[in-house]
């Protein structure tokens, strides 16, 4: 990984572009100060990295661009704490540290030819972005795609422009929803909580894979809804988003029972999830 044999030493990147997704969510495109590092970086969709704002600290985000778009890294983060606040304060050309990739990934090879559903709630949409973008970059390799994205309010919806582009791709259906009360004038999407909207989509479980990421409460009710609709736990894939410090299975922060999220996850099927202790 990093030089000098010290795995904690980040690579340096610069902010090449910043995009405001919502009032508190931003996407950064980061390019490596040493071009060779960027061009040789390999990762798989679903893996994460540790991003540094020097002087503020390090935060863990999923690598939001798919491996089909190599040479740079993208992260989409919500301003919630010390590091993300500092990160939001940086602008184009400023330096951000990067170390990774870490963790496991979505088994996209196994999913070739299958119908896929990507469900993202709030900032959880960032976690499904890499596999979704990969699938759309390799459109012919996969079956029908449904994207279900929800947020508390219209203003909190991320990837607005991209959603419109995705909706124009063949055999892709994009459904957006906001929580009741979160609609705004001119809103032409759904109103309702993600699990309810998902049920209304009437998707047949047969052969389908559902990737679902979002806040713990949404995940809880989505898993109940999916079970009710007849989706087997093996067809349902999510990511665990525990607090992490090292990213390499050492620091002891992210485990759920014997499952060490940074090493054994973050990607996990609902079937695996059911075997873990209720320590979430």
């Amino acid at each position: 990984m990093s030089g000098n044999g010290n795995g904690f030493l980040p690579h340096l990147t610069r902010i090449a572009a910043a995009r405001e997704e919502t009032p508190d969510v931003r996407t950064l495109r980061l390019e490596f100060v040493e071009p060779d590092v960027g061009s040789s970086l390999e990762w798989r969709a679903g893996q994460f990295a540790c991003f540094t704002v020097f002087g503020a600290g390090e935060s863990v985000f999923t690598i939001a661009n798919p491996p089909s778009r190599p040479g740079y890294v993208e992260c989409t983060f919500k301003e919630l704490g010390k590091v993300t606040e500092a990160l939001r304060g940086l602008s184009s050309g400023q330096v951000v540290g990067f170390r990774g990739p870490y963790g496991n990934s979505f088994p996209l090879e196994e999913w070739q030819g299958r119908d896929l559903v990507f469900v993202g709630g709030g900032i959880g949409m960032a976690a499904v972005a890499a596999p979704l973008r990969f699938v759309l970059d390799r459109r012919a390799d996969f079956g029908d795609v449904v994207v279900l994205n929800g947020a508390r309010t219209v203003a909190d919806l991320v990837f607005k422009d991209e959603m419109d582009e995705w909706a124009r791709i063949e055999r892709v259906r994009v459904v957006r929803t906001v929580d009741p009360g979160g609609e705004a004038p001119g809103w032409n999407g759904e109103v309702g909580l993600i699990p309810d909207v998902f049920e209304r989509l009437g998707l047949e479980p047969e052969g389908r894979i559902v990737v679902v990421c979002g806040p713990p409460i949404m995940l809880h009710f989505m898993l109940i809804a999916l079970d009710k609709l007849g989706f087997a736990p093996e067809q349902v894939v999510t990511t665990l988003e525990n607090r992490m410090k090292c990213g390499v299975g050492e620091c002891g922060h992210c485990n759920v029972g014997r499952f060490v999220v940074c090493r054994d996850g973050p990607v996990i099927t609902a079937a695996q999830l059911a075997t873990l202790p209720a320590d979430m």
Partner: protein
Amino acid sequence: MDGWLLSDGDLRGWLAALLSSGSRLIAPVEEDGLTVFRAVASAEAVSLDGYGTSRWSPKEALFPSTEALFSYRLEGNDVALATPPAGEEEQVLFAVRPCDAAGLARLDEMFLADGEDSLYASRRARTATVSLACESARPECFCTAVGGSPAGADGSDLQLVSLGEEWLLRPLTEKGAALAGAASERWAPAPDEALARAEEQRLAVEASIGGGAVPGEWASVLESAFANPLWQQLGERCLSCGICAYVCPSCSCFDVGDEGSAFCGTRCRIWDSCTFAQFTRHASGHNPRSGQPARYRQRVLHKFSYFPLEHEGRFMCVGCGRCVKLCPVGLDIRHSVELVAADAAGSADA
């Protein structure tokens, strides 16, 4: 080679030779009425009289409580990074108790397994450990319950045994034999009588430690007892002070953070404890272990269930008893394990 019989003068002479060879010698010293491990500059500073257990385990010498990972400096619109200079000196951890030496072996499993930690590994490679067999047990000792012994070899390169006026020194690894090195040519081979006395001492100390061994199968029993209501009872007494983790020879959890300003500073790793409320708290405010009972349960289960289930049954507890002795509310980890496992096993039988 079964060992050598050394006079006190031989022993101090050897330590002096190690020091003059440039090795760092980390040994027990008396400080304000407590025994602590310190780097010493002379063999005379080493205190071996009436030493029970040091207040802190000697793990600091391998896994410092605060350690610089790298430093950063903003220069205009650039950032310059520098790693701390890699140490080169050899270090000798001298007269650590066998439980503490075993604690180092558990740390090895955390830091040297899949994808080794280069900072730890570098220090580990330059460290030799001389353990000191226990002459007696303290009330809080329970090494024999977790696979250890007052003369356990786990994690030791050499072992020293006090035989009254003399010392028995036994090499346990090649590194240990090398550390004895040329000095050993002047030492008398240990007579059978000395080895027999050491063995008697081991048996006597073992016998004085109460309680049986924690059965290996309890690791699985405890994992299935995750929802046992006793965790609530036990864990709500925990004050979240973290002393158990700080004095523990095998606790390896750490936090990572920046010390400094927006212009220059150091990224450090710092010991952390799973019993702290912030330990698992997400930025969103969601906390997977939202109550103290869940956090205390994590501490016990990591040591007696999760770790042994992944490491051929070895507990991530070496029975030094420091946490039992120093817990302000009298929580006793072995007692907690016994209580929950017995309850779970009992309800499984019923």
